[in-house]
């Protein structure tokens, strides 16, 4: 009933049509008060109407205005907005003052509406396109790192095409996507990502990375449900609004710019290897065939003889084919063997853009070409993007426009990730011989080993030559994508406008993963070819009312929207080949297996919003939306959600005197967003395995279908204050939010003895509450010099308030190697769970019913009388994936035409399970496994000769109930802890004492990082170039990820993960190290 009332009242508003009066033309020039230069792209609009234009490259504008028009609003990003009373003159020359801290900043909000920030009752943060292009990241999402409060970005690795994960204000769902909706020019676009687990897979990245940063005018992040409510279901996790550049922002006439960016990359951080012992076991090694024929030559561990130059037959020793004997050669370390595997990566992007603006049309065409070669040999990416943006004024009231980007991305090879031999780094940085000469492997990978008959390699029981893997076992990808929209707007009157838009994002993708014949794992060769097509179509129509009645400014919107999604995939798998290197079905030596699948869904919506401003100090926004979803049961497929927000500009209120406080605004808002289910979740189905000797093999799903599924819901509250001091030189925005996501559509685990592993239900209440602070300050500003600091800090607490019934936890995903990530009722989301070692302090944790849930250990390790760890009797909490807080500080300096800036960002807390460390120690490859102990001996020396590892722990044991009893060194119970003095053989310690105890390799993933440094200079009026039309040239030297100032994680950059997917957070497994990049950016404006 409520919603109907709302619609009716809106229709009533719209019903009051007023015919426009006579029109007249005004014109003028907008210049800067600082240097008198004309300012292009300034918005000039008649207040309270939708009539407006922008200035051309010479700062000039011309506009038809109604005779009775009262006020002209002149606004531009970075300048103070001016209101000019219109009188009889027809020419208005306007001087704009810089707005040091953007008090009148305009931001893009939901539905692409540009609004003054001061009128908003919720927080929106934006990033200009300029910030993304100078120091480029191959994945655009990574460029946002450290710049936005409440936005956590995790890059997965330094591999080509690796994904970036973006989470706004914590994880809100127990299953499914926790990442925001991306909208480009009003069209929701696909940000599909590879969900690679810890074990294996290839990270093909996340698809929003297709957007060329050079085409981006700005990014606006709608963090809460409050800002995003109008986007409906899919905005549950916030919205990233990307506005692309149009012809409007450039000169009347022709504008050309060329931009070239080159970034060279090297690994930022490599594991800390030992160089004292080579491959083998128990101090022995002798190579015969690399798969067990010699002494430990099948072992891919480095517990072999000391690298002291002794003579041992090795894989690269001279081989006598007659006697079949390998000569013994000096057994020496190759300290750089992992580092030298990497090449210098290069990412080069060139963008050429041509714009033209005339009275009746605007036009922008950009062509970009990217060429990237990775740090991993034989990995690359090429991308070509053509973007066209055009607008045409059909009449003075009717405008049509359109935009389209055609993007072709090709990769010849993206190396696999995770715990698989196809991921080369899994071997070389984890299961490797420290004596291996990588240069030899590089030079000889195309040759055949005389004994094994396979590619020349240091080992033949587990691995191929790494160069063989990257050259022959490739994962290639081609994606062709079209993102575009057409739109039409019609002004009925100066305050009532209709807009309609139809947009689409569609791509087809081919991924071909080939495995060469004679590879260790694929003796017969194999390949998989995936063809997929996705399309999301959006159409909407809006009716917008923008009018002033006395002291009231009203902006009302009524709209309707439709989203339709189609997905199709076909894949072909061939497990053996006839002849090598031809990956086609005709070359299959065994029948190809195939698969196909399609998904379709649709969402229909109506929505309305009213924004009311009173005397420019009190603002009220109301929104309402109703969605109908195809994926829910018919009886529950319609759901309604409202939002309200209030902004109060204290300093503008009548009777207020601001003093040192130049501006203060308080804001409050409340919103709900509904969400829907995945397609086809309502019925159980059978799935087919391959035919067995011609017989069909079918089995029923493992998930019990829901009986009465409802939409899920997020309720969000937000309070904030925006304060500016000292004549706007200092500003501080603070936001507190609390969001609860309830009725989540999740698959809960049920007792498998029901015949089903999971059941789809509505349940759960996940809460995110937190603070976000944004600080801006200008410590120094003179005519020629300016120092600008921006900083942000956010803390989020992600709580599992409620699950389902008396369920204690839900497994979010089973991490790997004994570590599982849980949502446990009453605790922070993302609890890491697994076996710990017993420690001196035990704390019993009780569940919500007061029963003993588990025992948590802290303090020094308890060791038995042999000095060895004792595994906890039960799994327990061993960490949490969620960071406590994070932020960034950027400093920018400008002296005349020279600019310098650097960005430091940081994260505190959040744990990561380092499989790199765990197995690296197990394999005896890490430095710690050959460290010097407190007796000055190598830990690998025998214990009775003074070697061995001594744990900094106390003696103890477990009693029959699994509780810790402290003991003395003889094993007798004691009350006073007795410090461990027993030494354990290093090999035993790092293999058997590490095994089954993931907690030993869980580390704090906090860090402080020098994220970005830019040094730039703009050359104006260069004599020789001026003649060919060059207006100016900007040259910047840039660096990204330059310095990991502080971290607690051994071997790996704590930011490294596995992929952008949900199910790999909190782990690293020998990722390709993140890249330290240095480069140049040149932009030439004609």
């Amino acid at each position, binding site marked *: 009933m409520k919603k109907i009332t709302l619609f009716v009242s809106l229709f009533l508003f719209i019903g009051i049509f007023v015919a426009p009066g006579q029109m007249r033309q005004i014109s003028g020039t907008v210049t800067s008060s600082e240097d008198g230069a004309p300012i292009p792209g300034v918005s000039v609009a008649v207040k309270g109407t939708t009539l407006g234009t922008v200035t051309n490259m010479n700062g000039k504008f011309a506009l038809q205005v109604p005779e009775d028009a009262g006020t002209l609003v002149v606004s531009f990003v970075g300048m103070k907005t001016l209101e000019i009373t219109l009188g009889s003159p027809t020419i208005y020359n306007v001087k704009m003052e810089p707005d040091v801290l953007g008090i009148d900043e305009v931001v893009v909000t939901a539905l692409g509406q540009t609004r003054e920030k001061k009128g908003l009752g919720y927080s929106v943060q934006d990033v200009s396109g300029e910030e993304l292009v100078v120091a480029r990241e191959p994945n655009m999402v990574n460029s946002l790192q450290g710049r936005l409060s409440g936005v956590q970005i995790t890059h997965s690795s330094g591999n080509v095409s690796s994904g970036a994960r973006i989470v706004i204000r914590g994880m809100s769902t127990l299953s499914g996507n926790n990442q925001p909706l991306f909208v480009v020019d009003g069209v929701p676009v696909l940000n599909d990502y590879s969900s690679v687990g810890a074990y294996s897979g290839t990270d093909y990245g996340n698809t929003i990375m297709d957007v060329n940063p050079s085409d981006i005018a700005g990014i606006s992040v709608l963090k809460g449900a409050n800002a995003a409510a109008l986007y409906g279901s899919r905005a549950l996790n916030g919205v990233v609004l990307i506005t692309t550049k149009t012809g409007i922002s450039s000169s009347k006439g022709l504008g050309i710019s060329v931009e070239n960016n080159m970034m060279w990359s090297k690994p930022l951080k490599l594991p800390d290897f030992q160089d004292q012992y080579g491959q083998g076991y128990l101090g022995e090694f002798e190579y015969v065939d690399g798969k067990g024929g010699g002494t430990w030559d099948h072992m891919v561990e480095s517990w072999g003889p000391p690298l002291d130059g002794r003579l041992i037959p090795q894989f690269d020793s001279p081989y006598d084919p007659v006697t079949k004997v390998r000569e013994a050669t000096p057994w020496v370390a190759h300290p750089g063997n992992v580092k030298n595997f990497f090449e210098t990566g290069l990412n080069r992007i060139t963008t050429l853009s041509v714009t033209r603006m005339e009275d009746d049309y605007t036009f922008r065409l950009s062509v970009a070409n990217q060429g990237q070669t990775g740090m991993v040999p034989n990995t690359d990416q090429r991308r070509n993007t053509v973007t066209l943006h055009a607008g045409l004024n059909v009449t003075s009231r009717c405008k049509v426009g359109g935009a389209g980007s055609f993007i072709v991305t090709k990769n010849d090879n993206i190396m696999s990730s995770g715990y698989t031999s196809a991921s080369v780094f899994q071997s070389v940085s984890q299961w490797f011989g420290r004596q291996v000469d990588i240069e030899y492997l590089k030079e000889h990978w195309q040759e055949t080993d005389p004994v094994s008959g396979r590619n020349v390699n240091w080992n033949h029981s587990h691995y191929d030559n790494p160069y063989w893997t990257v050259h022959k076992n490739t994962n290639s990808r081609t994606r062709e994508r079209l993102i575009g929209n057409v739109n039409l707007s019609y002004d009925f009157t100066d305050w009532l406008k209709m807009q309609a838009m139809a947009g689409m994002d569609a791509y087809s993708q081919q991924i071909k993963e080939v495995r060469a014949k004679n590879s260790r794992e694929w003796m017969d060769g194999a390949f998989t070819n995936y063809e997929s097509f996705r399309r999301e179509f959006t159409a909407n129509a809006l*009716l917008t009312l923008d009018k002033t009645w006395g002291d009231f400014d009203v902006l009302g919107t009524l709209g309707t929207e439709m989203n339709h999604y189609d997905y199709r995939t076909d894949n072909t798998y061939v497990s053996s080949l006839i002849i090598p290197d031809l990956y086609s079905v005709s070359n299959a030596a065994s029948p190809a297996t195939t698969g196909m699948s399609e998904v379709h869904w649709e969402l229909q919506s109506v929505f309305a919003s009213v924004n009311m401003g009173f005397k420019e100090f009190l603002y009220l926004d109301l929104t309402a939306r109703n969605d109908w979803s195809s994926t829910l049961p018919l009886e529950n497929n319609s759901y309604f959600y409202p939002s309200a927000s209030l902004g109060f500009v204290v300093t503008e209120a009548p009777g207020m005197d601001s003093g040192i406080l130049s501006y203060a605004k308080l804001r409050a808002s409340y919103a709900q967003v509904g969400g829907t289910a995945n397609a086809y979740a309502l019925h159980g189905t*059978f799935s087919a395995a391959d035919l067995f000797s011609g017989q069909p093999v079918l089995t029923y799903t493992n998930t019990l279908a829901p009986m009465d599924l409802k939409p899920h819901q997020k309720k969000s509250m937000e309070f904030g204050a925006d304060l500016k001091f000292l004549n706007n030189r200092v500003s501080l925005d603070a936001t507190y939010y609390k969001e609860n996501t309830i009725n989540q559509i999740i698959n809960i685990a049920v007792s498998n003895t029901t015949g089903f592993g999971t059941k789809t239900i509505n349940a759960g209440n996940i809460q995110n509450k937190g603070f976000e602070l944004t600080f801006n300050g200008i410590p120094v500003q003179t005519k020629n010099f300016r120092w600008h600091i921006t900083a942000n800090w956010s803390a989020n607490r992600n709580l599992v308030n409620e699950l389902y019934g008396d369920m204690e936890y839900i497994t979010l995903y089973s991490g790997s190697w004994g570590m599982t990530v849980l949502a446990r009722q009453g605790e922070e989301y993302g609890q890491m769970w697994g076996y710990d070692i017993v420690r001196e302090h035990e704390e019993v944790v009780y569940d919500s019913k007061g029963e003993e849930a588990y025992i948590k250990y802290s303090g020094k390790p308890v060791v038995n009388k042999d000095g060895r760890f004792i595994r906890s009797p039960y799994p327990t909490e061993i960490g949490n994936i969620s960071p406590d807080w994070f932020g960034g500080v950027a400093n920018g300096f400008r002296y005349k035409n020279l600019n310098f800036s650097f960005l430091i960002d940081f994260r505190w807390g959040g744990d990561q399970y380092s499989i790199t460390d765990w197995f690296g120690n197990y394999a005896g490859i890490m430095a710690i496994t050959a460290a010097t102990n407190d007796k000055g001996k190598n830990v690998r020396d025998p214990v009775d000769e003074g070697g061995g590892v001594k744990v900094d722990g106390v003696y103890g044991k477990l009693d029959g109930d699994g509780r810790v009893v402290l003991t003395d060194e003889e094993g007798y119970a004691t009350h006073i802890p007795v410090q461990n003095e027993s030494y354990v053989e290093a090999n035993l310690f790092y293999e058997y004492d590490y095994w089954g105890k993931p907690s030993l390799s869980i580390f704090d993933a906090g860090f402080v990082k020098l994220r970005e440094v830019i040094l730039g200079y703009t050359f104006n009026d260069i004599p020789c170039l001026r003649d060919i039309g060059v207006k100016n040239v900007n040259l910047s030297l840039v660096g990204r990820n330059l310095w990991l100032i502080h971290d607690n994680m051994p071997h790996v950059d704590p930011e490294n993960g596995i992929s952008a997917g949900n199910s790999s957070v909190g782990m690293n497994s020998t990722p390709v190290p993140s890249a330290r990049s240095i480069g140049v950016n040149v932009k030439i404006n004609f």
Partner: protein
Amino acid sequence: MGIIEMQNCKKYVKGILFAVLMMIVGSCTKGFEEMNKDPNLPVDVPAIHIFTHALVNHVEYESGGWMQHSCLGLWAQQWCKVRYIDEDRYMPRNLDHYFHSRYTNALQDLTIVIDKASAPQNRNDGLLAAAKIWRVLIFHYLTDLWGDVPYTEANQGLQPGGTIAPVYDTQESIYKALIAELEEANDLLTSSVLNFGNGDLLFGGDPMAWKKFGNSLQLRILNRVAGTPWSFTYDMAGGSQVTTNAGAAAWGEADAKMGNILANPSNYPVFTSNDDNVQLSYPGLPYRNPIFNALFLRTDQGISQTMVDFLNDRDDPRVHIYAQPIPKSLIAGGEPVYNGHQNGLAHGAAEFHNISLLGTAIGYNENAPLYVLCLDEVEFIQAEFYMRKGDENKAKQHYEAGIKASMDRWGCFDGSTVSPSTKKDGVLPFTYAVDHAAYLTHPLVSWGGNTGEKFRKILEQKWAAMFGQGAQAWTEVRRTGFPARIFEYELEGTYYPDLGMPVRLTYSTAEAILNKANLKAAKERQHVQDINEGLFSPDGTKSQVWWNTRKNPVPTETDPPSADMQ
């Protein structure tokens, strides 16, 4: 471009706009139900195809999966791991999945098949009986390994009002119910029942073959609860001796029921030929023998020293099938040498190239069959039964028939020759002439000795024949205390010293959360300990499964490492 004034058509535009808006608003949801129909997967399929999955899934699980090749095959000391030997030291990985997957896979398939095959409109007695027999096999597997498990209330997920927290039935009640189900299946399988199709990968839908299978399975189940009426003295390492006493029959009627089956072959036909065996042969890609698949990429499994010594001591031709000669003996030429690896022994003493890998026919043949229930086992069960009955003639007859059935099953036919084979170099120029009669006269094989020794011979031969059926073999080891060698030495490197051999598998940790009260009750009534993974019974037979009435010796002296390695 001129500006077109639209003053006069403004009215129409307003009208059109309203019409368009009203049309779009919430009007196009009619196709939603159709749109949300899954275009990829069926909601219903013929029962026989689901049955096929239940067969493939369970054979792979029981005889080809991780439980076989990395856990129970090791605990039975038939197989071993040469690397990553944690399970060999009684430290299994989390077993939740291996418990759950029976219910969510094969058992759920069979629940649907039984539902469909018993529906009046689609009644299919052959398929119904076969599905019941196969379900009994799986439940029997589960209860023998874990003890009390959900049975009566299991797999009710799809049933309206079905429980989502099934009770754990006592093993005793499950045993009795399983026998009742097999009786029901036997009654259903009359001569008028039609063949139910080739989706039955085991017997091509032949109802009579299933009848034999059901009754042979009944023998296996009954024999397990019929008691171990012998005492036996173990010569422990270190010189001491431990005598274990006879184990009482857990179910007093078991022998009578077995007698009834064996006395009525027309009503209760059982296996009489190796053609009756329940085994699944693999056609090759995409269905390759799962052991082949596991060993294709890595060599972690070998043969246990306990098994190799048993075979070598008896000059048993099956050693050439079960194992590969050690590489060293190939280099030297001449006679092949077989060295088992001592289960649980650390890498140190065991050099890789001094260990026999699994035979090529077992582990390196993609078409090799996997075995579920075979003639040799049924013969040995009868031998044991007649020993209990005191009919030693019949016992001897079935003992020798069991040996012959096993030799034949592994290709060691009387009068034939077998050759060792290796993964690396194929067949060696060495042949061994098989002579069944000679084998039966070998001092360690020939029928004789006191009662305990006769039982021992039957049960150790049964264990040797069940190579690759680790779950069944380990269960028999627990029940009977044979092969004796396993109990004479403590496992070198065991994670749980002084506790002997595990008596059951660890209960699911997920069940402890999702079905808390029922699991708790089951653990309490079975005295399952909460420490040491709940694997052991330190306090007599208290924590052993219901039928396990004999307490096996707990040796404390560890195995002398590689004492008899060559």
